[in-house]
């Protein structure tokens, strides 16, 4: 686990490349505090910041092949490197390290760009082929590890985080109006767009090659894909749900076993829910690895799950640490969070996880397994159930009973008069006209986050022009998506928008790597995803029970109440984290002031002023208001960072181009 950076293009000179590589990689020191490595030759410069996890003695990067014609820097883990190495050695390949990285160059020698098909892991790879003078960038299947790139002066520049690009290409520190409205609507920006005008993100499961003549080729080597709906009837897939559960458990055990590979001790997050409890139970039940667990607890009961966490700790007997997190901790950590996240966000929930990673690091751990991904793979989200009810209701639109099923989904509505009378129809009936579209399930979420659109300045709106978020997103979807089952469509959109764009990045890689901690995601082993994708939808959401088959597969390993527990979404206090006794934190007062808002130019000072007052008085109780507030504040923090990069780079004695070019 590490950070990588570099560039490639004609005329790159090794001795001049080194200071530029240093400037880039030094911005990523938090990702790899155990040392830097460099390789520069005509045409390419590669830099690496190392967090040692496998092969502590000889695993320094860059790593080359036997003939030293292929060089790589890599961030992540290849979990099946043991098996790959055995096969390669049997075929005559000779290795000079014990690292997982070295299999990459050997596989490339043997299979060319298809080397990625052999990898089971989470990775961002840059590989230089001297003989063909080409650069290859590759990113893991689900988007666990980040990889950004930019074009400037005929070269391609790449890095694990955008700040390494800002450090040498100040023109990349400019926000894109379209990127901003996408972030505020979808929670994340569909790859390859980013919130930065000139920066692209390599999409998950993709390989980008830049050839000798500068030509770029983007190939997708893997994607979430689902069978046609009629091929997923239980009769055609599994007659016996018990057999399916047994097969799933076997796969889960193997995924966990592979992901425990490390030459340092491994920890795990324990949220108190089914998914993370399942991972810890699998480690305890099927491996000899001692496991240390960590969790976040909130002062505020509304968000706290510590009762369930404590029950799991008692059941599993793990050595456990709880980090208690209050509103003020979140508010004060938020600017630092945005320096790591580098893109606008709509919730504060990543902040406690950054603080948790800090605690993990302090306890001497570099690796944690997490339960992230189970909801996407096995159908855990309320959004899936909500869409199921709304589709069911649409078949009898005049039914007064069907929409009431939605009341069961949202606990807060049960105690509310709004759940009675005709209100359920009024609220949940919105967006029904999109029934036949692949983004149907996501319309309520995206409509709600569009509350933030009211904050935009007229100038920014004019820049974006007419933009329909629903059709724009549909452009990014597979052509045959409407042949899949409705649940499969919802899973695909969720895997691309919320999982890859937010949960694995802002709430995943970026917050754990802020403190040199590597997250691992057994539920995102691609063999598990492919297995689950073939299952009948009723094996995932059965009636109103989510993750049905996963529960069956984990039965016997977990206490009954955890096994039966309905999913509680992980959330943290939002706008309340920034105001105390009606007073904002100092930086919040400054960044949200009318002058600052006006001079940044993205938002309308009057609208922000009203929202600010509503939050200050504690009147912002809806998700929509809270998301709008967090969206505006986080955008202002990202803007503030951009301004700093522009002035830092301007103040350097010589611009990067003078180092890099002749």
């Amino acid at each position, binding site marked *: 686990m590490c950070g990588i950076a570099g560039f490639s293009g004609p005329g790159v000179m090794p001795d001049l490349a080194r200071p530029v590589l240093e400037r880039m990689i030094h911005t990523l020191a938090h990702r790899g505090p155990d040392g830097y490595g460099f390789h520069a030759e005509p045409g390419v410069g590669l830099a690496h910041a190392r967090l040692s996890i496998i092969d502590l003695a000889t695993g320094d990067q860059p790593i080359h092949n036997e003939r030293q014609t292929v060089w790589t820097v890599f961030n992540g883990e290849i979990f099946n490197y043991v098996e790959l190495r055995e096969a390669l050695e049997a075929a005559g390949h000779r290795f000079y390290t014990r690292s997982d990285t070295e299999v990459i160059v050997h596989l490339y020698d043997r299979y060319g760009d298809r080397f990625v098909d052999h990898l089971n892991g989470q990775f961002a790879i840059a590989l230089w082929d001297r003989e063909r003078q080409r650069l290859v960038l590759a990113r893991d299947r689900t988007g666990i590890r980040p990889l950004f790139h930019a074009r400037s002066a005929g070269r391609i520049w790449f890095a694990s985080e955008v700040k390494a690009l800002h450090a040498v290409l100040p023109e990349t520190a400019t926000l894109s109006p379209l990127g901003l409205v996408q972030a505020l609507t979808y929670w994340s920006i569909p790859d390859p767009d980013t919130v930065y005008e000139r920066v692209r993100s390599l999409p998950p499961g993709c390989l980008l090659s830049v050839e000798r003549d500068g030509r770029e080729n983007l190939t997708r080597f893997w994607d979430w894909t689902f069978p046609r709906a009629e091929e997923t009837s239980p009769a055609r897939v599994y007659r016996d749900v018990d057999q399916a559960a047994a097969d799933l458990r076997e796969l889960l055990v193997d995924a966990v076993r592979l992901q425990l590979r490390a030459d340092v001790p491994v920890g795990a997050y324990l949220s108190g829910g089914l998914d993370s409890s399942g991972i810890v139970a699998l480690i305890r039940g099927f491996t000899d690895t001692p496991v240390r667990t960590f969790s976040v607890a909130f002062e505020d009961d509304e968000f706290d799950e510590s009762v369930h966490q404590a029950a799991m700790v008692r059941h599993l007997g793990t050595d456990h640490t709880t980090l208690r997190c209050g509103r003020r901790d979140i508010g004060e950590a938020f600017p630092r969070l945005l320096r790591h996240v580098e893109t606008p966000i709509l919730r504060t929930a990543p902040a406690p996880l950054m603080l948790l990673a800090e605690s993990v690091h302090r306890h001497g751990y570099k690796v944690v397994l997490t339960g992230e991904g189970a909801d996407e793979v096995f159908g855990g989200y309320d959004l899936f159930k909500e869409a199921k009810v709304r589709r069911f209701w649409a078949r009898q639109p005049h039914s007064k009973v069907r929409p009431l099923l939605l009341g069961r989904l949202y606990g807060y509505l049960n105690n509310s008069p*709004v759940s009675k009378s*005709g*209100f359920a129809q009024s609220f949940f009936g*919105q967006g029904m006209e999109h029934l036949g579209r692949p983004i149907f399930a996501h319309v309520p979420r995206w409509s709600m986050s569009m509350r933030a659109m009211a904050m935009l300045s007229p100038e920014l709106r004019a820049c974006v022009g007419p933009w329909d978020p629903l059709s724009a997103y549909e452009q990014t979807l597979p052509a045959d998506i409407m042949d899949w089952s409705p649940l499969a469509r919802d899973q695909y959109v969720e895997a691309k928008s919320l999982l890859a764009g937010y949960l694995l990045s802002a709430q995943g890689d970026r917050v754990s790597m802020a403190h040199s901690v590597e997250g691992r995601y057994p539920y995102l082993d691609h063999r598990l995803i492919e297995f689950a994708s073939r299952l009948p939808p009723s094996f995932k959401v059965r009636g109103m029970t989510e993750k049905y088959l996963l529960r069956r597969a984990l039965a016997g390993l977990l206490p009954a109440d955890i096994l039966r527990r309905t999913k509680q979404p992980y959330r943290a206090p939002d706008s309340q984290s920034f105001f105390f006794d009606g007073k904002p934190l100092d930086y919040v007062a400054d960044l949200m002031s009318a002058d600052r808002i006006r001079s940044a130019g993205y938002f309308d000072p009057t609208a922000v002023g*009203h929202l600010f007052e509503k939050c200050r008085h504690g009147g912002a109780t809806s998700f929509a208001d809270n998301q709008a507030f967090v969206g505006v504040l986080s955008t202002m923090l990202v803007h503030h960072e951009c301004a700093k990069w522009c002035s830092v780079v301007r103040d350097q004695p010589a611009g990067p181009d003078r180092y890099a070019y002749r």
Partner: protein
Amino acid sequence: MERRGQIKQFVLQNFLFSDNEAAIGDEDPLIRGGVVDSIGIHELIVFLERNFQISVSPEEMTPAIFDSIRSVDEFVTRKLAI
């Protein structure tokens, strides 16, 4: 300020974050128009109860009453007349 004006100001500032009177008309749909969501209904009720010293019972909370600024105002008028 007259009552309808106060309700309109509340809707403008709390749901539309605007000072522009033209941003919403008295007859414009609040729920179907996406101006007020389920939590917003609660915010609106708390506002009415505090400002006009009325008490809204669960039976009275129907979509028809919260259809527009005008229907909300008419509801308050009826409550105050009792």
